[in-house]
């Protein structure tokens, strides 16, 4: 289950963060997303290590923990997408697919002339779209 998705700006400022848990614990997800920026930073700053994935937007699994997984995605404008899932058995292709759709939704949201770049995304349409993408996560491959 995806518990949280986030858009983080190029200055590592949160632009959009949405949790999908029932409990009132969004703060811990903020923490997870925030700390995962460490890994993104590390990969971006150490291109040696990232090797062949250098030019790829999809950063893959940011770090394995026992209980949840954090995936990252870095756009060309250095905007990061972070996905936190408690599913420990996730297929890479699903995540890639998810990010691709998420990216499209993001691009649409920021193309809105009323959106101020580098400000929080407040579009309700975007939120709905994201929620749809999250709901359909993993379904396409399963079906």
């Amino acid at each position, binding site marked *: 289950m995806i518990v949280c998705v986030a858009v983080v700006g190029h200055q590592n*400022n949160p632009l959009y963060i949405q949790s999908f848990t029932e409990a009132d614990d969004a*703060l811990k997800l903020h923490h997870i997303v925030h*700390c995962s920026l460490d890994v993104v930073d590390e990969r971006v700053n150490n291109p040696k290590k990232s090797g062949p994935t250098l030019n790829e937007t999809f950063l893959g699994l940011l770090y394995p923990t026992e209980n949840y997984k954090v995936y990252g995605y870095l756009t060309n404008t250095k905007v990061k997408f972070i996905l936190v899932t408690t599913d420990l058995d996730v297929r890479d292709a699903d995540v890639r697919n998810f990010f691709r759709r998420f990216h499209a939704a993001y691009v649409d949201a920021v193309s809105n002339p009323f959106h101020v770049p580098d400000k929080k995304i407040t579009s309700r349409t975007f939120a709905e779209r994201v929620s749809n993408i999250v709901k359909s996560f993993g379904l396409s491959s399963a079906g």
Partner: protein
Amino acid sequence: MANFLAQFQSIKNSCDHLVIAVEDVSDLWPTIKTGFEERLPFRRACLNNKTRNSVFLEKLPAEFILTTDARLRSRFPQEQSLFWFREPYATVVLVTCEDLEEFKTILKPRLKLIVQNDEREWFIVFVSKAAPNNDQATKSAKKVYAKLEVEFSSKKRERCCKLDLHCPEASFWEDLESKITECIRNTLDRRVQFYEDEIRKLSEQRLLPVWNFCNFFILKESLAFMFEMAHLHEDALREYDELELCYLETVNMSGKQRDFGGVEHGDDQAALLNPGNKPLTQIVQDDSFREFEFRQYLFACQSKLLLKLKRPFEVASRGYSFIISFSKSLALHEKILPFCMREVWVLTACLALINATASQHNGVVPPDVEKEFYRLEGDLYSLCRVKFMRLAYLIGYGTDIERSPVNSASLSMLPWPKPPVWPSVPPDSSSKVLEKEKLILQTVPRVKHFGIERKPLPLEPTVLLREANRRRASLSAGNVFEMFDGHIGSVDGSGPDASIRTSPSQRVRASAMPRTNSSPGNFDNSIDRPMRLAEIYVAAEHALQQTISDADLWKSLSSLEEFEQKYLELTKGAADNYHHSWWKRHGVVLDGEIAAVCFRHGNFDLAAKSYEKVCALHAGEGWQELLAEVLPNLAECQKILNDQAGYLSSCVRLLSLDKGLFLTKEREAFQSEVVRIAHSEMKDPVHLDVSSLITFSGNPGPPLELCDGDPGTLSVTVWSGFPGDITLDSFSLTLMATYNADEGVKALRSSIAIVLKPGRNTITLDLPPQKPGSYVLGVLTGQIGHLRFRSHSFSKGGPADSDDFMSYEKPARPILKVFKPRPLVDLAAVISSALLINEPQWVGIIVRPINYSLKAAVLHIDTGPGLKIEESQVIEMESYADVSQANADIKLGDGAQIGTLDAEKHFERLTLHDGKIDLPDWASDTSSILWIPVCAINDTLTRGSSSDTPQRQSIVDGLRTIALKLEFGVSHNQIFERTLAVHFTDPFYVTTRVTDKCDDGTLLLQVILQSEVKATLTIYDAWLDLQDGFIHTGVGDGRPTSCFFPLVISPGSRAGVLFTIRLGKTNAEDESKAVQPESILNIRYEIYGDRSTGAHLPVAVTSSGPDGSKRDLIFRSAIVLQRPVLDPCLAVGFLPLPSSGLRVGQLVTMKWRVERLKDFEEKIVSQNNDEVLYEVNANSENWMIAGRKRGHASISTKQGSRIVISILCLPLVAGYVRPPQLGLPNVDEANVSCNPSGPHLVCVLPPVLSSSFCVPVDS
């Protein structure tokens, strides 16, 4: 083959280096043993690795063992092949012989026998015992050695070397070493080949049922072990890696369910770094290896090799993933493992890894690897910390664990342990249960600072109470639950554990109910009754005690204090390591956890420091939600530490966070704290940046525009982020000039206190005159009590953008424009033509404002010399339709045109006070004319001139100046000064000429009047007061016939008046009058003119017009009349010019004849009577004179004597010009008779056309 395992194990344990066999043929070993063993371990050996590439080894340990040694004997052939790795890798044959015969007969056959076994790698060391001075012995030894070499060495390979006992050659040992190494290399290659073949064979049979992992293991590990002995650790590691891979494949194969292991005592302590933890035989059962032990064993072997390779980084990195994956395996088998085995194992494994790697890490690695290493250490600490917290929570220390995001993230997503049955309360533990209950009751709910109410973050994945009871009594789980839920009241996601602690009323209820059940009797049949929290804690503690074998770990869990100490140690470890790595955020967040502990222990200084770091991290990247969690803690620390500046700053930061993050009540609490501290006694004023809280912007619309030097008022919008009204004791705002930063910053102050309402406020500030340029708002500063704040932040017409916590955006829009100095007003004289002199006249001054209001302007008027203002007269002012301006307006647009045309005609009379006039309001925006009555005074009488030699009056004589100074602007700050020149003149210019001399001596004097003004002049009368020697003819006073009057002279035209006079003496009564040297012409006239064009009726006349007593103006002019020559003494005659005429450029001689008409009797006194002074005057523009212009010519005093004076002249211009004149300055004019008598003209022809006169025309 499994039965070989024990043996294999013992062999492995007993030998850890290569063996070199020594075949001591001639009993030499004891003598040379020391020398040989000194060479151990071999340095710089070169061996081949598995891929047959040379590897240089710094150190290769080995052991020399005599073939007769028990260790090398009594081995079964089968064992030999299986454990081949322990067989000698080289055989050194030691011989000596001094006799060639002996060699041939005894030694040679024996050696042949020894070396016939091809399996072995051998070489012969010939030991020469010959003393160096014994030549005989040396010689024979050499011979024998030569023979030996012939027999045993081949071209391909030298197998002999010679050791001189008494004087060993230096090269021998190197030779020996290289030979031994060569042997070892060959043997190793062969054996590797052998093992590889065997392993390949086995691998091919992998899928057959007969295949046995044990055999594979022994072969593979033998090979690995051999590599390890040869110090080829890389190869050994690779073998172990392959072995692990193979094991994981077999162990995961279905249908091969085996015993997992891990149930023995002490298994909870991870043995992932200790390969010898358990004997192999113990972990192998029926050819199957127990996963729990064997995987740890394999990892231990790998890590041992990695540590030997000095790669602690890799140990940590592999170790971390191993722990994660192994933890998953443990989870799969959790049902058979002791309670919390998994957690304890991970905990110990992490600690073991940290200990092993941290001690090995020496920092001589590339920086990025080092960073990565620290990151891994941090990860290990962090993992360890999480597990430790979980264990602590289970035994009831959860109250001591901070419910922070980091803890919640790691704990609430970590599932509870899943034992088959949850441990139940041990018997006779009611006292412990009571103790725990007491602990729960005693725990004071942790209240957040500032009375912030938040739902605490969960530390548990689900409610422990529910989970434990469900696991314990699976039979009636559902019922137990519902019953329980009914009692406890609401159970939400965050768990009753949390709610118990947070709401005191619920706590009482929850604890009161079970207390009735806690009589000891109820424990026995507790299986039917759901356990209470305290019981769960006690049961978990009991079960954990069974699981944990490590005394230290158990001690850490034995009490709250111990727990805290260990917790702190782990947290610090993680934080420190993260700080050394790339993962700064992880480190800083954990610092916050340390701070929480410090805070609890009253170490507020440390806590504040750490909290500051956390706050800086979150604030820097705008993670407000996280910041809102930590900032109150920091504020509390600062409050306790009495750090007023810090506390104020924290409160302000709290206020500047997103409004949704705190309730209004909480925000008001922040504000009241700010106000309280600001107004409290503080040593020093505190400076604070409140950019995020108070923002400001100029008003929308165009910027305020001011002319240079003008003050103004600036209105700005200030947004207050305070939840309530706040009083600013002072307030100032700086203006910054764009494009000119060093121009300095101008501060605008508001002296009065300002109350800011929440949200938008408009504040007006006085603006002193600024330099030209455009200005933007700079910094807002102000004071609240002792708090001096400043704000750099601009809002774009909205409330503070909380996203830009730290960004200072400069607005591009200027707030104020001060124009460069430009003419704001123009003062000009209305008329261009002359006014009447000596009469009061109106001077019109056009006051034309140029897009600038002249409200309340004051005009200073200062007249120059010869001009005075008629004070008695009022000054008139009327609006003025400037034609040129109107045209411009029409071009500009219709609106402007209409405005101009609609402008009312104003007229007003003003009076002059101290040379100043206040301009009326209506004149502030429109052009107007100011009519000032002035009078130019000129005392001298005008002189007429002869028409022959007209002498115009200089214009300068009639020029007068008026200095004007206009003070205008908001505070009379603008000054415009101008000096106007006004031209005054007489109405007429008079020339006279005698038109005719009649025979009777009457002279007709024509007086020509040239009108000098642009006005109509009407002459009513004219008369001439004649000078001495002239009288009027006839009886009249000489006036012209009156019927000609009035005579009207249009502007610019001329009129003439003819007077008849004659020479003569005036009457006797006239003689009493002073002798008049000149005649005076009097003209009575009237003037009709427009004051806007020039001369006009004098002011007084205008004013007295209605009375009817019109005063005519009188114009007087002096005329000099020249009397004819009455007594000529000398005659000057101009001799005729040559008939060819004069031409420009042609020299001509001018001649005058001077003739003495009579004697100068009365002038006898003059000294040089026989000389006369002459002077030639000529207009230098017309003539060039060659020769003396002035000089004495001698002329006899006799009457009739004559001389001719000639002068060479050159005419310069063509036309009728006046020729040069000869004057006699010493002789009175009355005594000189001239011919021609008056001025005359001569004709000068233009020059003859000649090429020489063609001059090139300048381009």
